[in-house]
């Protein structure tokens, strides 16, 4: 084993510690499969309509409504209802708090993956 590898190994905390810590901090609102998909999609685009989200994530109307509401209640997503001509249009956007929560979540996942790498 090289000196650099030994040094890196010494700096990396044991997997059980990092994993336990990261898992303990995982945001329960984002952690669900559908909520995570919605937040990820909104992180990639400035805003998305209900129809765009439904089509991109292949969700049913009911499933999307329920999980979008859950994210709205947590303050992670804002929802604006309006009209595009005569057609009703519901638009979703990630709030600053939602973006921070998403970045935190990514940080925890990265920490878990880093700690699980051998060497």
């Amino acid at each position, binding site marked *: 084993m090289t000196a650099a590898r030994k040094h890196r190994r010494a700096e990396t905390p044991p997997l059980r510690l990092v994993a336990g810590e990261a*898992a303990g*901090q995982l945001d*329960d609102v984002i952690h669900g499969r559908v909520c995570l998909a919605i937040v990820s999609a909104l992180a990639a685009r400035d805003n998305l*309509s209900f129809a765009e989200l439904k089509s991109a994530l292949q969700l049913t109307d009911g499933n999307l409504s329920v999980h979008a509401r859950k994210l709205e209640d947590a303050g992670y997503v804002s929802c604006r209802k309006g009209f595009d001509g005569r057609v009703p249009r519901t638009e979703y956007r990630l709030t600053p708090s939602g973006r921070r929560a998403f970045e935190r979540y990514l940080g925890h996942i990265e920490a878990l*993956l880093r700690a699980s790498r051998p060497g």
Partner: protein
Amino acid sequence: MPNVRTRPAAPPVDAPAAGPSLPARAAEDLRAIRSSMERASLFTAVPGHGGMLMGLVGLTGAVLASRQADSGAWLRVWLGTAAIGVVVGLCAFAHTARATGQSLLSPTGRRFLLALLPPLIVGGALTAVLPGRGLSSALPGIWLLCYGASTITCGLLSLPLVPVMGVGFMLLGAAALALPPAAGDACMAAGFGGLQLLFGWLIARRHLAAGEAP
């Protein structure tokens, strides 16, 4: 500040567990995040039935063009067919985009259009120059290649079926250039008629399966 519950601390990762391990779950989450972000950046309002209509226009153009005796009339028929095809295509895109709540003018729609245009501009420039140099017979191959390239580039921002159709057009374009000039209209009929009809049908089926307007 939202009232967010956090998960209870997990057992040590090396303890026996019924589900996937934490690192495996983290890797799975990362893949799901990447996939959702990619899909959100796609323009999926590609018309299925509109594509089939464009295929019918292409087939009609091929039949009419094959009956022309001189290259000038032949070119005019194809230019007229292209103009009708563009109008039908734009109307179909606008209709599908409206029906699915998307817009050609949204950032994704604009990127889709920008990806579509450069190969078509190349095709237009060559169409303006080549007949004057007596190279009209090369046009079917060039049109099919340019349309195929355009479909592949915009298809990378859209449904996976779209770039596959582009590959088909490019293969037909290469065939049109390799075969004798008399085969040009047949290749055009196979591409702008056959491929367009086939993929229009496949895309319409995909939209219907997803509960969207075809």
